[in-house]
């Protein structure tokens, strides 16, 4: 075990995969450049060669199809987009080819491609560099969608994704790249489809993913000291969703808060609320709630993002409402020392 950052854990997973299996290739804009996609691919081409680790033209659509073709040819491609937003150009290939190939050819062959997409936020990322559209991918049969929160999961889930025989959309939140954790060395895999119980408690089931789990953790721990205790479930994969864990929790707590880093309307939190309502009707003791991004794009000006994102204090407030108990949450906001538009003091722009 070594304490590493989330970004280093990603790089570690890629290196392990490249080492383990000559079929693995890693590519995407900037993969071999001196920044190495926020450090996540840094210098991998030096070790594994420019044939297997390479940069690409700004051709997101074709390069996705090329990855699909390479996968059909026996490779295990890992494609990275520095922002999810750029991948909108490649949805035809993702949905009409990668997701459906196995089905439409009667199970003859699947497409074991992993597509990393980084979700931006803050520091003026603005409307075209900050979208969190996991709901889109999670709506598509044939895709798996992964959203790790911890450095450990970043590695374990990425290795599981790469060696999974289905196409996986792997969403990394830029604000998590610098979180640290103990990450097991070597070929460490975390199964897809299993959520993680981050905290256990009695009053409310809180379901989150990615950065929302990280924010929720502050809220849940803060409320625990006020005798409101929660099950905090980190989804890890948003397709498939680990319903058994969520249902078991709600059957105990009778209360649900579903979080999402994406837009509220038609988002994943709607799926969680809808599923749980139908499946756990008898056990619900209060209306389930969701807390997600407002239904507007992220603006660029820091003045306009200050009251835009969901943070620990908002989560604490809604948990208390769901629990039907008074609580203090304002101090959570005050405890933050760095400006609201950066993930921490380590971040100094420009992107």
């Amino acid at each position, binding site marked *: 075990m070594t304490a590493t950052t989330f970004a280093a854990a990603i790089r570690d997973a890629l290196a392990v995969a490249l080492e383990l299996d000559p079929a693995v290739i890693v590519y995407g804009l900037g993969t071999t450049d001196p920044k190495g996609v926020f450090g996540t691919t840094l210098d991998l081409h030096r070790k594994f060669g420019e044939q297997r680790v390479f940069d690409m033209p700004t051709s997101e659509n074709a390069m996705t199809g*090329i990855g699909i*073709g390479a996968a*059909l040819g026996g490779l295990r491609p890992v494609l990275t987009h520095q922002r999810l937003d750029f991948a909108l150009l490649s949805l035809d290939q993702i949905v009409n080819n990668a997701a459906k190939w196995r089905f439409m*050819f009667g199970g003859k*062959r699947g497409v074991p491609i992993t597509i990393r997409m980084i979700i931006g936020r803050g520091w003026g990322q603005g409307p075209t560099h900050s979208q969190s559209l996991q709901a889109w991918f999670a709506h598509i049969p044939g895709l798996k969608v992964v959203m790790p929160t911890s450095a450990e999961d970043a590695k374990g889930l990425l290795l599981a994704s790469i060696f999974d025989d289905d196409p996986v959309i792997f969403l990394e939140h830029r604000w998590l790249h610098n979180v640290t954790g103990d990450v097991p060395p070597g070929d460490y895999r975390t199964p897809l489809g299993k959520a993680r119980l981050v905290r256990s408690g009695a009053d409310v089931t809180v379901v989150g993913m990615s950065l929302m789990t990280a924010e929720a953790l502050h809220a849940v721990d803060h409320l625990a000291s006020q005798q409101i205790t929660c099950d905090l479930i980190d989804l890890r994969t948003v397709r498939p969703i680990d319903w058994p864990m969520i249902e078991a929790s709600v059957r105990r707590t009778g209360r649900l808060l579903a979080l999402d880093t994406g837009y509220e309307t038609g988002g994943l939190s709607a799926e969680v609320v809808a599923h749980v309502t139908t499946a756990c009707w008898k056990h619900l003791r209060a209306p389930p709630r969701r807390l997600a991004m407002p239904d507007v794009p992220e603006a660029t000006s820091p003045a306009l993002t200050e009251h835009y994102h969901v943070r620990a204090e908002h989560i604490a407030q809604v948990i208390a409402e769901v629990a039907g108990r008074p609580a203090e949450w304002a101090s959570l906001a005050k405890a933050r020392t760095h400006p609201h538009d950066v993930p921490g003091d380590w971040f100094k722009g420009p992107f």
Partner: protein
Amino acid sequence: MSPDLSRRLLREMMRIRIVEETIADRYAEWKMRCPVHLSIGQEAPSAAAGLVLRHSDLTVSGHRAHAHYLAKGGDLPAMIAEIYGKATGCSGGKGGSMHLVDERVGFMGSTAIVGGTVPVGVGLALSLQLRGKDDVVCIFIGDAVLETGVFYEAANFAVLRRLPVLFLCENNLYSVYSPLSVRQPLDRPLERVAKGIGLMTVSGDGNDVRACHALIDGAVSRLRGGAGPQFVELSTYRWREHCGPLYDNDIGYRTVEEFEAWRQRDPIDLFRGVLRQEGTVDDAWMAAATTALREEVTAAFAFADSSPVPPAGEAFAHIYSVEP
């Protein structure tokens, strides 16, 4: 060209023609309940490509893929069964006419989004190159594919990496009912655009199967020699409606004269004439070949017709490698 190769070319075109005409004839039985895009009139490029390519070469195609599939060696009964929606279909009934596959002969898949398999083919070529194989990938495209952005993106990458890809373009002048004139500037030949993006290009008469064979053979030789991606444009013409079994010269998007001019240049008639004159085939050969092909096709339809439909549960299978 050897007599043997000549006969195989003619036979392959005849085979495609008979298959497609049988589909057309029997479509009104309403047992083939899916869109079908027939290649009647434009059999030459497929036949030629099929005889140039090896089984270990890979191929992808689009919506109009029957001829490509057959020429590459695809399983005829499995194709007909697929169009019939049967369990014995090459895609288990999931894909239908527009989604064919036969990996055993390198036919890696055809899909129905125009341009959608172009990058897939390039990716297959990347996998061949990385694995050090000297096989090539043939990507069948129509004239409309040169309007899709993904073609340029994929071709650029193929050129950049000198991938073993043949873009084989059947220019039949139409996309559905839209003539080239509403889609591409008429004074800019397709070949010129392909050359612009960096492909080595040739073009020729797509109804002259020997010309097709020579052009494709040259391109594939260059590919195996490492010359980088090739583009072959072959001019040809679809006889029937864009989608479906009928003729549609009455509806007004093209003239009867144009159609008749092309039908005069039936690739099968033309080549049969040549081979007769050369003495490579005679009436007896023609009769025997036709009979054998008809028998094969009849058997394939009988197989398809009598095959079981897939069990209802199959509709929900094959979404993931491990069903949840």
